[in-house]
């Protein structure tokens, strides 16, 4: 019997809705499902929404009856917002979130490093935007609940998942006892402490860092803009770091490192929290300013990944697949990329557009991304949470030097989460003009957004399948091309032809025509009339041509679907 709490979680600013559990007795007997997703956090919900976009239904299980406790992941990157736009919720984050692009590092009262990430005019979204995770989950859940292909089940806790012939057998516990589900695929999106992962005895590769950090959300009126603040080795917390981030509703995240040896229990005692938060406020000149605690927790930094995400019919994603540092905001932001990739790879296998082998590509690409993150974020982590005496000495030497020496200041760069280039993907075209280009995103790269006109960007129009974006001249799209696209569609591969035109008139044969009066796409993508880019369903580029022809297009789609 699984009895999740029906008490709304406490919060001074967020009203937790308690949902009704899904119970066997109230539902028909269960067929064999296509996909069961365990975990309704950001990774699970984006996976469900992307699967649905590609026409695949899923069952989405949440052990709890309400959204996650506390604000958790609060910073979402530009790429994450592009992915959230694909699943239809970015506008809600934009409405309620706090966009930003600058951060400051302070040592001995001096601002020793300031990073101003540029906001490229071609990007719709800001480099970063802050909103509490409960709101993000609410927006995602609203989209899931409105989608007839997604069956959200609250109060359903997975207790066992077993690979069997042709699928997975799942045992799920509920407030009225357990039931069994048979499914073709099971997505383990059950978070950092994944019981599916531990139940299968899977080992993570990489490093764990000993240092513990407290995160506390307080409501306080501080006159700062939305910029990251990082304080190094302050007087009240010698040798340690403090981060502060602004959230909506007058909430501030205070994040501080604990001295070695202190336990989470000691650190989370209300008196300890109060003493340290008061010390931080005093240091920044706001002693005595009234504040209220909303939520607090502890974390430690880890740079870990499974070496393989696909285990027969069980696929790991998000924190269940990897544990990545808070430095550079790597957790949820990586999960969105995983989920977007998983959504289309799995959908195409389930729908028969590609063989099961395609899932190996998903794993290879995303494990590759995790390893890149571990390398990059590892550097930031060794700076923020030095794991040894040697690293601590180097960090402290840099802090001291940074007061007068410019050359060390770039070491403060926190290396924000970014999308990854799948440069060696098996799905990349063997017959395109990639190497002949002198500009534009290369094959494997994530998309570069383009502002075509006011409030009209390239990525507003792509997604849901493969997108062939063709630069047309006044003659329109050649018949050879529209015929080739139609043939590919008839063979069952979802492909849309988008024509980019300097004129407003829609062009014959194209699914849609993008009016690009200033030829910004051609400039940004370094491509002339007759050329084209082929975007995958996750908008990564898998082929590009300076002069497109039907034969190479056909072959590239076959390679992209491993046919």
């Amino acid at each position: 019997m699984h009895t999740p709490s029906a008490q709304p979680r406490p919060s001074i600013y967020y009203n937790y809705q308690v949902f009704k559990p899904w119970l066997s007795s109230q539902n028909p007997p269960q067929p064999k499902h296509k996909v069961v997703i365990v975990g309704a956090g950001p990774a699970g919900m984006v996976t469900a929404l992307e699967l649905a976009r590609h026409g695949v239904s899923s069952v989405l299980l949440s052990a709890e009856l309400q959204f996650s406790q506390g604000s958790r992941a609060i910073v979402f990157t530009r790429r994450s917002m592009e992915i959230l736009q694909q699943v239809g919720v970015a506008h809600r984050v934009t409405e309620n979130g706090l966009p930003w692009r600058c951060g400051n590092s302070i040592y001995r009262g001096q601002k020793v490093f300031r990073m101003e990430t540029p906001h490229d005019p071609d990007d719709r979204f800001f480099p970063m935007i802050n909103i509490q995770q409960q709101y993000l989950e609410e927006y995602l859940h609203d989209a899931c609940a409105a989608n007839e292909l997604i069956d959200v089940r609250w109060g359903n806790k997975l207790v066992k998942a077993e690979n069997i012939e042709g699928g997975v057998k799942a045992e799920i516990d509920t407030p009225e006892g357990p039931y069994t589900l048979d499914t073709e695929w099971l997505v383990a999106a059950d978070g950092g402490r994944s019981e599916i992962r531990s139940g299968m005895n899977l080992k993570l590769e990489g490093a764990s860092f000993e240092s513990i950090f407290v995160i506390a959300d307080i409501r306080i009126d501080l006159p700062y803009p939305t910029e990251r603040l990082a304080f190094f080795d302050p007087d009240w917390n010698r040798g340690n770091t403090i981060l502060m981030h602004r959230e909506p509703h007058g909430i501030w995240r205070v994040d501080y490192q604990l001295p070695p040896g202190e336990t989470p229990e000691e650190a989370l005692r209300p008196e300890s929290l109060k003493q340290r938060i008061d010390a931080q406020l005093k240091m920044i000149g706001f002693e005595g300013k009234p504040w209220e605690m909303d939520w607090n927790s502890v974390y430690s930094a880890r740079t870990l990944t499974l070496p393989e995400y696909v285990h027969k019919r069980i696929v790991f994603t998000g924190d269940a697949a990897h544990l990545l540092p808070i430095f550079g905001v790597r957790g949820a932001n990586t999960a969105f990329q995983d989920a977007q990739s998983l959504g289309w790879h799995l959908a195409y296998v389930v729908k028969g557009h590609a063989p099961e082998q395609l899932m190996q590509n998903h794993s290879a690409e995303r494990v590759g991304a995790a390893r890149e993150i571990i390398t990059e974020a590892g550097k930031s982590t060794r700076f923020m949470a030095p794991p040894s005496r040697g690293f601590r000495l180097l960090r402290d030497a840099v802090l001291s030097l940074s007061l007068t020496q410019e050359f060390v200041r770039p070491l403060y760069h926190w290396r924000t989460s970014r999308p990854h280039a799948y440069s060696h993907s098996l799905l990349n075209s063997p017959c395109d003009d990639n190497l002949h280009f002198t500009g534009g995103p290369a094959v494997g790269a994530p998309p570069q957004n383009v502002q075509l006109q006011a409030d009209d960007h390239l990525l507003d129009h792509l997604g849901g399948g493969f997108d062939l974006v063709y630069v047309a001249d006044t003659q329109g799209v050649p018949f050879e091309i529209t015929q080739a696209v139609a043939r590919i569609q008839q063979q069952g591969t979802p492909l849309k032809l988008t024509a980019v035109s300097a004129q407003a008139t829609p062009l014959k044969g194209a699914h849609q025509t993008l009016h690009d009066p200033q030829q910004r796409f051609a400039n940004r993508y370094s491509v002339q009339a007759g050329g084209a880019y082929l975007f995958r369903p996750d908008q990564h580029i898998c082929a590009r041509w300076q002069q497109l022809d039907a034969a190479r297009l056909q072959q590239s789609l076959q390679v992209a679907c491993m046919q």
Partner: protein
Amino acid sequence: MNTQATLDIAGLEQVYDALATAIDQAGADKSELFLVKLALLNAKAMGNPQVFEAQIASALQDL
């Protein structure tokens, strides 16, 4: 800067005395931190990570 510059005996004696004095000036608590800072500043002046790593190997010998 003269890339052929070498450290003659007079120069070595100058460095020797300056470094010893500086270590004393930094004090027991801070001399390690001082030396790491100095190493980074020297690495910047040298501009060659491979040479720096070769120096690390030399300095690790016979400790």
